[in-house]
């Protein structure tokens, strides 16, 4: 509920509600009008030199630093708050962590009060990658897509994410700024010179294949580009013209009145189109440079994917290594598999209250090796009023499946036919009428409270709790300011608990990654509705 009050001293009006990153000292709530002056300096994280022209924001105040990097903010009440500093071309700590996909860590707050000294804030200077793309003959190539990717570890899995995309200009040049420190890979192309269809009877059309810097067509040959604060890397990339080809064939099972579309996917997020005759299903793709592509067709009756009543037909993804025209590809439409999750609340609390979806499943493809969550590709629909979740358009294959508890519930059992999903992967076959995934949740979980002792004050240590009964379940929590990490609503049983510093890029899903830590972990037993306390030391991890 918002209210507003008049500030007679300034003839201004502002809203009194909780701003982010502000905590008021409860002992002094609203009754104190004591205010303080906050001073400080903004410096470059590498050179430690002052930075002019940065913007400092704190509470409801904002100011620009002077040309010596110094700032003064007046009339700040006695609060604990985050000093937010920004400047184009620089990153502050929260921006770096956000871009690296690091789990939320407690931001560094300062206590405003009479005893505080001047504050120093560091900003990290951006990196820049620029360059020029030319043909083998040295002619600049324009409108070539350039993609910078970097790897991120999310939920313990290393994935390659495209981060920035640009196109080369009329001189073949590109420039990508605003880069956080890290390792990047650059890919250029593919480009078919804008040729969409075969209308030419002259020599074979040509274009440029996907090329990873410096020159290979395979990601394994890519050279990583290391960016440190303030580094500017200039690259030259040469692309070799190659013949273009097309993929053609038939989509089987088309029905009149339904729209059919074809998705062609190449490496580095390259997508292309194809034209389809909706009556016969005959298709041919745009002209493509040589490479590895996956192609599939979808047909739907116009309702959106993932809608509770949308019906979709899919074909399996077909992988094609294109180094000549490929014809006579058959894509066979079949009804999309829908698998439903049935949630059963077996709690002992006795209340029959509706709880929505108690745990959120996450699917990771074990086969494609990409290790990324497929939740977005697969439409998830939760019909209202039911404790059900529908997964639509799911292809046969093997998947790692995880359940993310919401704190109040834990998964007591999860089965798919005779597959025990708490111990094994989810395997989906092409057979029709798959069973539902039966998930039983309970709300009588216990709590593990881990106090991490460490010689230095370091909030944001990662604490792991690995279930001994279901070793697939790896839970993480972060220590708060007082060094305690809490796992609530966990299944009763035995756990190994340990804490690691420097865990943000630990690929803990790789088998064996946690072995050395498990040897030094503390054993914890948790009973239903009980709290188990444990004190552990921080284990150090080398980068």
């Amino acid at each position: 509920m918002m209210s507003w009050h008049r500030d007679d001293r300034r003839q201004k009006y502002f809203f009194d509600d909780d701003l982010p990153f502000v905590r008021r000292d409860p002992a002094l709530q609203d009754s104190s009008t004591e205010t303080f002056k906050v001073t400080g300096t903004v410096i470059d994280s590498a050179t430690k030199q002052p930075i002019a022209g940065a913007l400092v924001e704190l509470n409801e105040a904002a100011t620009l630093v002077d040309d010596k990097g110094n700032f003064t903010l007046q009339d700040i009440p006695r609060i604990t708050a985050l000093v937010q500093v920004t400047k184009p071309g620089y990153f502050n700590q929260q921006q770096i962590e956000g871009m690296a996909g690091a789990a939320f860590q407690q931001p560094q707050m300062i206590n405003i009060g009479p005893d505080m000294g001047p504050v120093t804030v560091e900003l990290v200077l951006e990196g820049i990658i620029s360059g020029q793309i030319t043909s083998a003959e040295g002619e600049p190539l324009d409108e070539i897509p350039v993609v910078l990717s970097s790897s991120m570890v999310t939920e313990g899995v290393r994935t390659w994410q495209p981060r920035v995309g640009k196109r080369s200009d009329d001189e073949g040049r590109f420039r990508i700024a605003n880069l956080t420190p890290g390792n990047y890979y650059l890919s250029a192309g593919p480009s078919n010179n804008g040729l969409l269809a075969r209308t030419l009877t002259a020599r074979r059309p040509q274009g440029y294949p996907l090329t990873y810097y410096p020159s290979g067509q395979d990601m394994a040959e890519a050279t990583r580009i290391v960016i440190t604060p303030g580094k500017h890397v200039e690259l030259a990339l040469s692309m070799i013209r190659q013949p273009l080809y097309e993929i053609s064939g038939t989509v089987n099972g088309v029905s009149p009145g339904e729209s059919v579309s074809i998705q062609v996917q190449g490496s580095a997020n390259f997508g292309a189109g194809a034209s389809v005759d909706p009556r016969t299903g005959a298709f041919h793709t745009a002209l493509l440079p040589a490479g590895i592509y996956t192609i599939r067709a979808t047909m739907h009756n116009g309702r959106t994917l993932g809608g509770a009543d949308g019906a979709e037909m899919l074909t399996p993804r077909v992988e094609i290594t294109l180094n000549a025209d490929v014809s006579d590809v058959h894509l066979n439409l079949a009804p999309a598999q829908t698998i439903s999750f049935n949630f059963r609340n077996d709690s002992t609390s006795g209340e029959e209250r509706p709880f929505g979806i108690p745990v959120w499943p996450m699917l990771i493809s074990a086969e494609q090796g990409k290790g990324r969550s497929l939740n977005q590709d697969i439409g998830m629909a939760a019909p209202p009023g039911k404790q059900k979740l529908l997964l639509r358009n799911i292809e046969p294959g093997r998947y790692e499946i995880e359940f993310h508890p919401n704190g109040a519930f834990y998964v007591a059992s999860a089965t798919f036919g005779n597959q025990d999903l708490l111990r094994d992967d989810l395997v989906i076959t092409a057979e029709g009428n798959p069973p539902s995934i039966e998930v039983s949740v309970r709300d009588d979980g216990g709590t593990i409270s881990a106090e991490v002792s460490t010689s230095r004050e370091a909030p944001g240590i990662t604490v792991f709790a690995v279930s001994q009964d279901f070793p697939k379940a790896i839970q993480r929590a972060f220590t708060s300011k007082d060094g305690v990490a809490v796992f609530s609503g966990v299944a009763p049983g035995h756990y190994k608990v340990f804490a690691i510093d420097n865990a943000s890029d630990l690929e803990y899903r790789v088998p064996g990654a946690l072995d050395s830590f498990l040897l030094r972990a503390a054993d914890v037993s948790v009973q239903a509705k009980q709290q188990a306390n444990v004190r552990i030391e921080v284990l150090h991890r080398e980068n």
Partner: protein
Amino acid sequence: MFLLMLLAASFSLLTEPWAPAAQQPAGFSISGSVVNSVTGNAVPEAEVTLQPQFRGAETQSITTDGSGGFVFSGLTAGRYTLTASRRGFMPQSFLQHGSYFSAVVVGEEFDTSHIVLRLPPQGVISGHILSETGEPIRDARVTAFLRDPSNPAEQSQRGAAESDDEGSYRIGRLPPGTYFVCVTAQPWYARHPPTIPPSDTPRVGSPIFHERPTSLRSSDARLDVAYQVTFFGGATQMADAQPIQIDGGETESADITLTPVPARHIRLNMPTNTMGFPNIELRTGPSSIGNQIPVQALQVEPGVWELAGIPPGHFTATLHIAEQGKQSPQVRTIDVGDGSVVDVDPTQGSVSIKGTLRGEAGFRPLGSRIQLSMAGIEPFRTDVAPDGTFEFKEEFSQGTYTLVVGGTTPHYLTNLTATGAKASGRQLEVGTKDVQLSVTVSGSFSDVSGFALLAGKRTPGMLVVLVPQGATKDTAPIRFDQSDGDGSFALHNVAAGNYVLLAVDHAWNLAWANPDFLAQFISKGQAVIAEAGGKSTLDITVQDANNGGPKR
């Protein structure tokens, strides 16, 4: 005599060796060269595409040789579209002017061996966007507008770019012409605290929207600033902007400095039963070419909002108001000037519009649609019921709208009358009263075709114009064509009415689409009455724009 000269001339240009007639490849040929339209130099490695305008033949493509030459042979007689393109140049069809070009006509009596395709080289405008202290401004949106050579009062957006970390931008692929460059950007450090106080008697009946404003009490008044939309040369309006001339392929430099000015605040009164944030877009011009200015909305009190962070200037504001399920976008032009608060009250009257659609005997209204459009917003459309009645579900604010009748078969407007609003031609001036329209259409079109004669000879590349006269001006547009290789022109789907037909030489470099320019040729043009369902075929004598009179 004529034929021998023809063969001799061809000999020097054909890249194939001349063979005696008996050994010539069967069919006709098209040959010529591709040159740089500015320097006249040959353009090698250009792609030349020949597309037949009839069935039964394939499109072909050839790359020009070292002297820019090309040959297509073994061709069937008929009409073809011939186009050349190359990286670094604008694609060009045979005798192309604007979007009009001539078909190449191949046959016994036509000489298609000296075709020259002139490619205009692409130019570049590049520069830096800097702040008043000389610092680069990144992520500024830079837009290049091209003056329409056929109608110099109009411009169209031709390219855009964003400035990079050095403030540098580059807009390429620009054909020769006169350009204007403008920048929209916001100071990155700008913060906009609320300045409009709640009134002593706040309005009731409207919910308070629970949203968190960035209500900073700024320690520094320097932060409540904005950049005005700025053109190259420093002006804030297109009319005062410094033009940039690109004649062919060069790179022109255009640096623009942006100076922060105090940002303005606008008070917005919303209708009492709307929920949520006001859905408002502020643009520098009509939605088709205007850049969007970001607007920060802070709630002052129920139903009253403060829009902050706005630079002074002239904007088109589009407010999307959904009342009881009805969408009604309202468009205002706002002048944000030195006064720091502007009242915009969208609750002022909106009117409903409905009417009937009639045609000739046998006309079936089902499938027709009535469209009302106004510059700056998406057009309003409604379907016509089988009994010919229609009603728009939106409400309309005051302004002038243009009416168009669309449908599954083409029809043209023959009459529009209205009660509650002023109708003239296809324009409708909406005021404060509900509107009832009576729309009459006809589906009987006419064809006007023939030949353009220059000094008695059928000539390609001539501008042919059909200008509506009298009452027809209100309902039919001016029609243009360019004579083909055989001197012919054809205008289809002409609305019945009175016209003057004219043909003009040397007009392509002048304001040929501007009605005032065409007026001087009307007296020597030819009157044409286009009958519904009829065809007119006539020869039209070409007038020379250079000499201001018809050629004899």
